[in-house]
């Protein structure tokens, strides 16, 4: 299993506060990884750095077989390289239909003129309906996404992420606000996705993480505190201290 993303020695501070401190992290192709950590551990900032929203003060972020540095690239370029991101709160385009949302996310040329001249074709339509099926929104395609329930919006967003066909999925608290059944469905989708690509899930909910059944990285104060299976990290004294408070 080759390395897809390698983050090494990354630090970033905001007005003197070190949000990420000498963080190193690796993930291979087709791997599932959960990141846990208390509030302020730097989980979201870590995602911001990988997706290009935040520029770190130091460190390297290396991507893919050709070892490209992601640091010099814009958010859209990074996304085109194959990094997909799902936000903590579901962010879908509420004024547009589910179909439009998915169609926008479908892997295609992204240039303005390509898009202007883009014509829907049967292949794309089939692919779109396939994804809708996968996230359980087949009968909602023509609805405004603003009218969807919270859980449906989460799925729509996951669907959009899948439609992008990224090589790396960064998923921020996918199960927040979902019913137990919905959680299960979400887990299935993620596990399925991890068979063909790398998936990084940031989650608070230990139960959910346990169900993902993957390697876990614990972040604390901007750096890696522990790494390993869920049982391994939950038995780590330091992790217990951090979570329960010293």
């Amino acid at each position, binding site marked *: 299993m080759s390395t897809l993303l390698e983050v090494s020695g990354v630090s970033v501070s905001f007005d003197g506060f070190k949000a990420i401190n000498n963080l190193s992290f690796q993930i291979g192709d087709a791997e599932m990884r959960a990141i846990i950590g208390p509030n302020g551990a730097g989980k979201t900032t870590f995602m911001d750095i990988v*997706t290009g*929203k935040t520029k770190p003060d130091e460190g390297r972020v290396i991507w893919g077989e050709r070892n490209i540095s992601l640091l010099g690239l*814009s*958010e*859209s*370029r990074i*996304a*085109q390289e194959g990094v*997909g*991101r799902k*936000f903590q709160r579901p*962010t*879908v*385009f*509420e*004024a*547009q239909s589910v179909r*439009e949302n998915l*169609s*926008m*996310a479908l892997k295609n040329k*992204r*240039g*303005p*003129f390509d*898009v*202007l001249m*883009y*014509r*829907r074709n049967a292949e794309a339509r089939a692919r779109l309906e396939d994804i809708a099926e996968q996230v359980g929104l087949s009968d909602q395609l023509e609805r*405004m996404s603003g009218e969807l329930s919270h859980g449906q919006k989460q799925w729509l967003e996951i669907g*959009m992420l899948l439609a*992008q066909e990224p090589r790396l999925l960064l998923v921020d608290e996918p199960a927040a606000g979902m019913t137990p059944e919905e959680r299960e469905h979400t887990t299935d989708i993620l596990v399925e996705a991890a068979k063909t690509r790398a998936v990084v899930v940031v989650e608070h909910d230990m139960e959910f993480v346990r169900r993902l059944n993957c390697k876990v990285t614990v972040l604390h104060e901007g750096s890696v505190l522990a790494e390993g299976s869920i049982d391994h990290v939950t038995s780590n004294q330091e992790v217990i201290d951090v979570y329960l408070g010293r």
Partner: protein
Amino acid sequence: MKQSFLIRNPHILVFMGLLAVFTIAVTLMSAYAGSDVISTSFVKTLGKTLCLCLIAIAMDLVWGYCGILSLGHFAFFGIGGYMVGMWLMYERTKEIVATSMAAEALPPTPEEVREGIGTQIFGVVGGAEIPWVWYFADFLSIQLALVVLVPGLLALIFGWLAFRSRVTGVYLSILTQAMTLALSLYLFQNDSGLRGNNGLSGLQNIPGLTDVGQDTISIWFFWASAVALALGYLMAVFFTQGKFGSVIRGIRDDEARVRFLGYNVEGYKLVVFTGTAVIAGIAGALYYPQAGIINPAEIAPIASIYLAVWVAIGGRGRIYGAVIGAAFVSLLSSWFTGGGAPDISLGVYTIQWTDWWLVLLGFSFVAVTLFAPKGIGGLFDLINPAHKGEKS
């Protein structure tokens, strides 16, 4: 494909039909057709209104769809006017100079003609030299190209700088307003080469067509404006439909999200900003020959603000809303300021609408923003509930 395009957008057919009926009706009622129902000056007013509708469409694209509240599009409109105005004024003056020199003992040399033109045009700003910006004023084709190129290039450079540094929202609005202010202040100078605050005048006269009366010319421009508006409408629908429309509406609602989908947001904004600037330039190039005069005051930031007002009142985020807003407000405005509205006597004080129209407009604008964010176009949703929300 074309068919489904029209079926998905029934308002195109409605709009085109109404525009065609309107155009033919105005033509038949004008002095051109021998009728005196509509005066030539009112034909010009209607033609100008069509141009304003066109720039309102541009504004709607950039603001209502792409979320960039540009307070600079009237500047592009003005530049378009200046570009065509330069040719009109130059050629017209050339005719006048040639006529006045014909009586001289020697036939004039091209240099003498040029000098005569220079004195004629730039005498008011104390010059006789023809500034370099007039280099192509003798060539209609080049000046017409400049109508598109200058606003487009300016928008491209400005937009590239502004979008690249991720200036958004109100900051961008203020920046575009500053750009407009800078441009109008620049044009106000005498050494801008465009006659300072005198501006360009006599644009209603078409060189080489001195025999053709204004009755006819006004109808020509009216038709040209109507065709431009129709094309602009079609193009706007084309731009806002399908995936491109999805993306730019996405940018309006949450540009960071669009970025994470892999779209180069800056590129899209630049395309929309520049494209609409070009439309604005064309609208201006059609407007000012009908107005007859252009000066830097036309470009002042307040004009762009009114443009935003029209679109907001008409209903942004729907093309026909922009058209309705521009037509409604600008015609109403000329009715009120032209003394058409009856004064209201309150005993101690008489409300004269020439004075109070702007107050009314200002407050109704506040009311629209607060209570009817969808504008007049929102009324159509009441008639046709199925339509609701689709384009808001």
